[in-house]
C-alpha cells in the first residue's frame, strides 16, 4: 500500500464509531474488502423465490395503497417544464381524482431548478405541511416508525451533484446541492463518483458523500435527507454493490438508492434485495435504520409488490414506511391506480381513465 492509503478521511460519525478515531483510506478499504462475498446465483435465486409470493385480495389492496405512499413520483427529463412539474405535483397529491381515498405519494422527485415550481404547486394544493417537515435527523434509532411524510404532505426530492453522470468538479456539485436545499428541497438524491469507486479510490467517494451531507444543512438547523445513488448498473458486480452500500452508509447516507434511471439495468430485485440485506445488517450492528430506494424500471404494480415482499421478508414490515423505503418511478403510479380501480369496481378501465403528468 502506498502512503496515500494513510490519508485521513472526513470524520463522519458512523465511520468513526465503526472504524475508530482515525478514519483513513486504509481502514475504509479493509472494512469494505472484508465484507463477506455475494454469490450471484444464490442471490438471484432468492429474489426469484420471493417473486413467487402470491399477494391477493385484502393483502393486495393494502399493498397497492402502500406502494402509492412509498412512491417518489419522478420526472427527470431534459424537456421538463414548470407546467409539467405543476401537473406532476397535482397528481402526487391526488393520484386518482375519481377516488379521494387514494393516498398521496411520498414525494415528487425533480431536477434542482424545478424545485421552486414544485414548492409552489404543492403549497397551492395544501400539501406542504407547516414547514417543520423534513427534519433530517440522520441516524434514526429505535423509535417508532412515524408516518411523518404523510402527515407532512408530499415532500420534494431534488437530484443533485451533476446528476446523472456525476461528472463535475466538487465545487459545482456542492453548489448544486445547496441551491436545491435553499429552494426548498426536503431530500437530495446525489450520485456517487462511479469512476472513483471502480478505480478503487474509496476515500474520494467517501469524502464526497460526507461533503454533500454537510451541504444538505438548512439555515434553520434542519437538514435535507440524503439519498445516495450507487448506480448499480455501472458497478459491474454484486460485491461492488455491497461495498458501495456500506461506503454510503458509513459516510452518512439516510437512504441508499439503486439507480438514476438513466443507465440500464436500473433497479432489479436481486440488487435491491442485496441492499436490503446491507441495511438489515447495519441495523443488527448499530440499531440504526437506513432507507432503501429502488429506482428506474419498476413499471407495474405486480413488480412493485414483489419489492414489498422482499422488504417485508428481509428487513421486516416496519421498513414499509416512507422514511425507510421508496420507489423511484414515473409510470408505476398509473398502473397502481389502474389496479386499484380494478379492485374497487371489479373490472379494468383503461389507460385513459388514469391521469397522466
Amino acid at each position, binding site marked *: 500500500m502506498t502512503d496515500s492509503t494513510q490519508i485521513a478521511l472526513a470524520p463522519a460519525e458512523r465511520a468513526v464509531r465503526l472504524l475508530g478515531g482515525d478514519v483513513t483510506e486504509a481502514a475504509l478499504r479493509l472494512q469494505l474488502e472484508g465484507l*463477506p*462475498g*455475494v*454469490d450471484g*446465483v*444464490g*442471490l438471484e*435465486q*432468492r429474489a426469484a423465490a420471493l417473486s*413467487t*409470493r*402470491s*399477494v*391477493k*385480495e*385484502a*393483502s*393486495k389492496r*393494502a*399493498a397497492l395503497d*402502500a406502494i402509492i405512499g412509498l412512491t417518489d413520483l419522478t420526472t427527470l427529463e431534459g424537456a421538463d417544464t414548470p407546467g409539467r412539474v405543476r401537473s406532476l405535483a397535482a397528481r402526487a397529491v391526488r393520484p386518482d381524482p375519481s377516488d379521494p381515498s387514494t393516498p398521496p405519494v411520498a414525494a415528487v422527485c425533480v431536477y434542482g431548478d424545478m424545485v421552486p415550481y414544485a414548492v409552489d404547486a404543492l403549497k397551492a394544493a395544501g400539501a406542504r405541511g407547516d414547514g417543520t417537515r423534513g427534519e433530517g435527523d440522520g441516524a434514526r434509532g429505535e423509535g417508532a416508525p412515524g408516518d411523518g411524510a404523510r402527515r407532512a404532505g408530499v415532500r420534494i426530492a431534488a437530484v443533485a451533484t451533476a446528476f446523472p453522470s456525476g461528472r463535475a468538479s466538487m465545487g459545482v456539485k456542492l453548489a448544486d446541492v445547496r441551491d436545491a436545499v435553499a429552494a426548498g428541497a426536503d431530500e437530495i438524491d446525489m450520485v456517487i463518483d462511479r469512476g472513483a469507486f471502480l478505480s478503487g479510490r474509496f476515500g474520494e467517494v467517501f469524502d464526497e458523500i460526507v461533503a454533500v451531507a454537510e451541504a444538505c444543512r438548512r439555515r434553520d438547523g434542519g437538514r435535507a435527507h440524503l439519498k445516495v445513488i450507487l448506480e448499480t448498473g455501472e458497478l459491474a458486480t454484486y460485491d461492488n454493490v455491497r461495498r458501495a452500500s456500506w461506503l454510503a452508509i458509513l459516510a452518512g447516507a439516510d437512504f441508499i438508492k439503486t439507480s438514476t434511471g438513466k443507465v440500464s439495468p436500473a433497479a432489479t430485485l436481486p440488487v435491491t434485495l442485496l441492499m436490503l*440485506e446491507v441495511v438489515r445488517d447495519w441495523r443488527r450492528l448499530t440499531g440504526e435504520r437506513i432507507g432503501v430506494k429502488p429506482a428506474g424500471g419498476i413499471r407495474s404494480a405486480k413488480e412493485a409488490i414483489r419489492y*414489498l415482499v422482499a422488504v*417485508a*421478508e428481509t428487513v421486516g*414490515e416496519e421498513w*414499509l414506511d416512507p422514511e425507510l423505503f421508496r420507489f423511484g418511478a414515473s409510470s408505476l403510479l398509473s398502473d397502481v391506480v389502474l389496479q386499484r380501480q380494478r379492485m374497487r369496481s371489479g373490472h379494468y378501465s383503461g389507460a385513459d381513465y388514469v391521469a397522466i403528468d
Partner: protein
Amino acid sequence: MGFLDYAPAPESASILSLRPEYGLFVDGEFVDGHGEPFVTISPATEERIAQVARADERDVDAAVAAARRAYERTWSRMSGTDRGKYLFRIARLVQERARELAVAESLDNGKPIRESRDVDIPLVAAWFFYYAGWADKLEYAGLGPRPRPLGVAAQVIPWNFPLLMAAWKIAPALAAGNTVVLKPAETTPLTALLLAEILQQADLPPGVVNILTGAGETGRTLVAHPGVDKVAFTGSTAVGRQIARAVAGTGRRLTLELGGKAANIVFDDAPLDEAVEGIVNGIFFNQGHVCCAGSRLLVQESIHDEVLDRLKRRLATLRLGDPLDKNTDIGAINSAEQLERIRELSAAGEQEGATRWSPECAIPDRGFWFAPTIFDGVTTSSRIAREEVFGPVLSVLTFRTLAEAVAKANNTPYGLSAGIWSEKGSRILAIADQLRAGVVWANTFNRFDPAAPFGGYKESGYGREGGRHGLHPYLSPSTLATPPAMIDTTGVTGSAATRASASARSAASGRGGKGNGK
C-alpha cells in the same frame, strides 16, 4: 392485518377430477386388485382423497406377465426412435397437465404447492424429455455399439417425491427398452395413478408400464418375483437391505438409492446470506423429507454464532400451513408414522444435551405437522447426528480446520450428498475430492438435473440415476450381432426372442406410425 399476513392464496383442488376409487394399472387398463383396498388421505387434513386397490400375489403375477408380453412383443422390438416418441409424448402431457399434477401431489403428499409446482413437476417433464433423447442414441451410452435392455424392471419408489421418483425410474427404463412394473408408496399413490392416465392418453402400448398400488407386502412380492430381470428401489436403508437379501443370488440386477445424512459445510469465507438460504433449502425443502437433505450443518467455529443468528432470523419468516396455499414454505409431514419418528429422534436430541430451537409457528389442529427445528451443540455421536431423521430437523456441529471438516463430514454410514460453501474455488475442489458422497453441491443445495448422475456411497446405496450413467442399470453391454431380446435371463421367452431378429425390429420401426400417428 400486517402486510406479511398474506391473504390466503390457495391453489384450487377443484381442477382435479379424481375418481373415488382407483384400481391397479395392468396391461394398459385399470383393473380391480385382489387385496383389501385402502384409503389414501391428505396429511394436511387427514381427509380421505380416494380408495386405492391393493395388489396381492396374483396381481403381481398378472402385472409381471403383462410386462413380459409387452417387452417381447412390442417394446424390445420397437426402434429407439419410436420409443423416444412415446417418451416425448409423455413429457409433453406432463407439462400440459402440470397444474393438475402439482395439486394432486401437494394434496396427497403434503408438500407445499410452491415446491410441487416449481420443482417436482417441471423435473418430471425434464426427466422424460431427457431420456426420450437417449432412446435412439444408446450406442453412445458407453456400453458398446449395441447395448441390450434387460427385460422386466420391478421398481419400488418412496413417498417423498412420488411422481418425480416414478419419472426417475420409468424414463430411463423405457428409453433403454425395458418394460416396467412400478409400485408407488402406500401413502402417496395418487400421482402415479394420474401418470397411468397420462400413459393411456399417450397411447403407450399396453403392459409397457404397469402400476401396482399397495403396502410393503406388495413391494416384497414384486421384488422377489422370479419373472423380473431388474430391481430398482428408492427408500430406507433398512428396506434396501431386505431387498438386497431377497435379490442376492438370483442373477437379477439391483440398484438401491437409500438414506443419507448429508453434511452441509460452511467455511468462514462463505457468501453468508446465500449460505443461509442454502442451509434452509438444504434441510427444510420438502419438510426435510429428502434423502439427500443437508441435515448436518458443519459450520466453521469462527462464524458459528453469526450463522446461527442469521439462520434463526430467516427461519422466523418461514410459513408453515396449508400445502395448497401458494405462500406456504413448509407443508405437512407425510404420515403419522413419520411424524412419530421425527418426534422420537428430536426427543433423543434433547436428552443427549443438544439445544433445541424452533421459531414461533402456529401448528394447525388437524393433520401431521412439525415446526422447523434446529439442534445446536450436537456431537458427532448423537443420534440426531448419525440417524436419518427425514424431517425438518437440522443438527449443527462446528469444525476448526479443513481436515476436521472432511473427517466429520465423512463420519457417517451414509454417503449420498454433501454441500460446500466457500468463495474460494480451490478449496471447494480440494474438499469435494475428499468427501465420500455421490453428489457434492458447491454454493448451492438440493439442485437436480436429469443430466447429472445421482446416487450414493456406502449405506446410501449403489447405482446411479440420471445422466448417461442412469442408463447403465437398465442395459447390458453389447455382444455384437446378438439381437436384444436374446438375452433374456429368465428363459421364459425363447421363441419370441428368436423372432426378434434385426429385420423384425426394422419392420417394427417401419410401422413407426404407432409411435406418433394416432
